[in-house]
């Protein structure tokens, strides 16, 4: 390479010019890249801008359609039906059959026992009991009847006052048969 014959100040000017032209080239490239980027982004921008209105319009139409369905009324109806069904189910579980009890007492009846009255009721403890009044031909027959009652699954206890045992024959009795709660009891409601 030949040494430069330019004076010192011109050498500085040339270097400054070179730097400036390099910056110019770089800026040109960057501007070109940005321009290309903008060109590629523009279709996405216009597509999204134009479809945004359409999407929002579809959402509003769907909202209006749902409002027309009267959702609140339907929800209230369903809620009422559910409450009624639950109450019905709960009440069904509280049901108890009294006919088997009457059949049981009929089955326990023996010829020498004559019942005058029967009272099925809820006692002070909340358990159910049956009060039986009648006549037995002999004391032993009465005691056998009481034992047969005590041996029944539905019976929890038989309350028989001592007065029932005073006569040996033609026994007039009054007993109270307490029932097992599993067999018959009142379940308070909701």
């Amino acid at each position, binding site marked *: 390479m030949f040494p430069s014959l330019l004076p010192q100040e011109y050498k500085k000017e040339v270097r400054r010019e070179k730097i400036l032209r390099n910056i110019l080239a770089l800026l040109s490239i960057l*501007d070109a890249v940005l321009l290309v980027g903008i060109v590629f982004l523009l279709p996405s921008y216009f597509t*999204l801008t134009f479809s945004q209105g359409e999407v929002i319009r579809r959402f509003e139409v*769907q909202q209006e359609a749902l409002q027309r369905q009267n*959702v609140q009324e339907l929800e209230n109806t369903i809620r009422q039906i559910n409450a009624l069904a639950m109450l019905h189910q709960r009440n069904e579980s509280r*049901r108890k059959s009294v006919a088997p009890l*009457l059949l049981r007492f009929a089955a326990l009846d023996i010829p020498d026992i004559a019942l005058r009255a029967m009272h099925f009721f809820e006692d002070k403890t909340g358990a159910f009991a049956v009060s039986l009044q009648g006549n037995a031909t002999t004391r032993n027959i009465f005691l056998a009847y009481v034992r047969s009652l005590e041996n029944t699954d539905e019976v929890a206890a038989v309350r028989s006052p001592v007065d029932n045992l005073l006569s040996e024959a033609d026994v007039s009795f009054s007993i109270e048969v307490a029932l097992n709660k599993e067999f018959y009891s009142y379940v308070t409601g909701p």
Partner: protein
Amino acid sequence: MLQVHKKTLWYTVILLALFLLLGGSIVLLYQRIVLASAVIKEAEGATAVLKHKEQGIGNNKRGLEELSASLAALEKSFVSQHTFVQFVELLEQLAQETGVAFRAQGAVLPTSPNEKAILRFEIQGSYAALVRFFILLDAVPYAGFTEDIRIAPLGKDAETLRASVTFTIFNFSSTP
């Protein structure tokens, strides 16, 4: 030389300004694209949810229509003040079927949720007929509970008995 240098400087300044302009534009454009995408995404998501709800509502309505017979039976299993007479008529029918004489004696209808709906009635007949009546009573559609029964002979005729019954109705609805 100085003129050439000035021209280059001007070109540099112009390209720098263009760079800043294009840079700002692309950033703005990108932000608008991101915003529009987010709005569209949210709107489409909300639309899908609403469509799903509408479908669910349609299914519920169809379900209610299909179950209308069962729902009617459910409502009928509840006694109200206006339908109480139907309950009494049912008991009269049961009495007729089982061969007992039926007489309603009194009714208490609740005025608050804590009160009970009670019907007191009397039936007369043989023990077997009374038991048959209670078998049918235990199976009536209106859920209830027999709270009290008093059975005693009707006069001197020991075959015919009188039963005074207190029956609590669970399925009582205060609304008609």
